[in-house]
């Protein structure tokens, strides 16, 4: 067994591109679900419109990188309004239905043959990241250190993406922290508990829910940018519903309505996934496991991660950072 490689990939995954992009999008989802109680099952769509906003602006319209970022952000805000205006007046479960449907519509439009000229069909777009990597301050090479025998190195491109990513995560966490300690955040949390009570105290519930939807959507869209830049491409099927469900897993894993919850949740999620995959595929390769081949390991790891999550929810339903007292109140 090649334990060095297993540990190297596992530790790197704790801070890698996937952790960053999912973590930041999950912070946005935490604003929706954790703080405001909005059941948004379309977070992937916010990532998608941002990633595509960037790609289409640069590739199809031939405009510079920054214009792409701005269009991506605008697209996320517009999506929030489109989702919010018809549904935020309704009960929570309607928002869930509409968001999941809207996210699928967005994905299917991106991959449709009709709009292949604009969105590139199921292949998506590539070649829009030059503007970003032109800003890269890291000279070509590998960066990192050896942790004992374990090498932990990223190349200069990945370094640049995850540096920007972690700065964005820090900023998003800071903003969420400030907001949720303020009276504004108090109104959001109160809406999560009981909308009518908040109305009876003279607050415009609709307006606050819309603000929360836009804020969480814009933070989520940053995850979409990181995806597009990190993988130097956007494809429609990356922004499917399972992406949203992974983010829910991370939010709950870390502890809903906790500032760092989604970030830690994302790290844990990817570390577990990479570790299990590494160990199992090595075991198959070396011959310790004979009843399946390397291709099946990919499916089995999801089964094991699922089982692990079930155990977590049974024994620690509040997540890593959650407060057990809150769960006890919920059960009443």
């Amino acid at each position: 067994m090649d334990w060095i490689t297993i540990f190297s990939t596992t530790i790197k995954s704790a801070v890698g591109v996937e952790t960053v992009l999912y973590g930041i999008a999950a912070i946005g989802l935490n604003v929706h679900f954790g703080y405001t109680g909005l059941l948004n099952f379309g977070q992937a769509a916010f990532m998608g419109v941002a990633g595509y906003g960037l790609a289409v602006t640069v590739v199809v319209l031939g405009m510079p990188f920054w214009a792409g970022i701005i269009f991506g952000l605008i697209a996320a805000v517009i999506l929030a309004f489109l989702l919010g205006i018809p549904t935020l007046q309704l009960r929570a479960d309607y928002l869930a239905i509409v968001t999941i449907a809207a996210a699928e519509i967005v994905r299917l439009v991106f991959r449709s043959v009709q709009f292949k000229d604009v969105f590139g069909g199921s292949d998506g777009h590539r070649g829009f990241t030059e503007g970003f990597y032109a800003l890269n301050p890291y000279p070509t090479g590998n960066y990192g250190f050896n942790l004992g025998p374990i090498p932990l190195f990223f190349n200069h491109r990945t370094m640049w993406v995850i540096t920007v990513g972690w700065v964005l995560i820090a900023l998003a966490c800071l903003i969420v922290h400030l907001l949720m300690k303020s009276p504004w955040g108090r109104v959001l949390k109160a809406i999560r508990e009981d909308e009518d009570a908040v109305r009876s105290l003279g607050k415009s519930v609709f307006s606050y829910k819309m603000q929360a939807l836009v804020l969480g959507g814009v933070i989520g869209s940053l995850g979409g940018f990181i995806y597009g830049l990190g993988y130097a491409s956007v494809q429609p099927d990356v922004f499917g519903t399972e992406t949203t469900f992974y983010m829910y897993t991370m939010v709950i894993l870390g502890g809903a309505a906790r500032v760092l919850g989604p970030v830690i949740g994302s790290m844990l999620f990817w570390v577990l996934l990479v570790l299990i995959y590494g160990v199992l595929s090595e075991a198959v390769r070396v011959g310790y496991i004979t009843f399946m081949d390397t291709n099946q390991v990919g499916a089995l790891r999801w089964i094991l991660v699922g089982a692990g999550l079930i155990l977590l929810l049974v024994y620690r339903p509040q997540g890593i950072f959650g407060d057990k007292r809150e769960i006890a109140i919920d059960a009443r």
Partner: protein
Amino acid sequence: MHAETMSTDRKAAALAAFKDLARDPGVPKPDPILVVDHVVRRFGGLTAVDVGHVEIQRGSITALIGPNGAGKTTFFNQLTGFDTADAGSWTFNGRSMNGVPAHKVARSGMVRTFQLTKALSRLTVLENMRLGAQKQKGENFWRALVPRVWRAQEDEITERAEELLARFKLDAKRDDFAGSLSGGQRKLLEMARALMVNPELVMLDEPMAGVNPALTQSLLGHVKDLREQGMTVLFVEHDMDMVRDISDWVIVMAQGAVIAEGPPSTIMSDQRVIDAYLGAHHDAPLSEGELEAQLQEAEAALEAEIEEETQK
């Protein structure tokens, strides 16, 4: 001592206002804070509320009573903007309020509580209270990001919240989650939270439902206290002892309409009210034959019982 005299003054003033009023539904009051005209709410074929004309006297405690399904809570919902009326108009302090959304109704000074208490469970008691304060600078998204802007106001709000909590004897619970309070304490919290809005008219939907007797007295005291502080109270209640104890005036609803008004001491002997609660012919047999049958049935039951006793 001073408070005592003031208390009797306010009560006396309220009672004096009602002294010579007729007992008819919709009777005009000398100084109404809330005037309701022809409010109708239908659910499909069912007319839940159809109130012709009602006025609520300023500075008084008015009870709204009626049998189950009389439409009291629905009426409350119409007035406070939680449900839209099919027809009708009402004014609060002379301002037309129909079609005004619930949060604007609350801002204008008309604040309600709910039959099923709505404590914000996973917020602390103190946060529940702070939420009630109006015109908070920190409730604006951009200003919320700069604590310096709202910190001073937050301190003021906290101080006011703590005073109210002390008055409602919830100060020991200030840092507990509201969800951990007992039913009665939640009622107290909800009332205290409503006061944070600085309302002119407090509308309480069954403030005593599910409250244990020990807390009832304290709640009653708080409701009376609202009037002493110059607020107007309108409440829905089933407990007639409470209605008699604290209200200055009683409005009776049945089948969606206001059927009678009057002082609490005499309202329950009003024939219209008795009919509404018990049915117009509740004590009359339906026919001569049925009366006979009822008598025989009772006699037979009695005889059977006696026989059983003697056999033992």
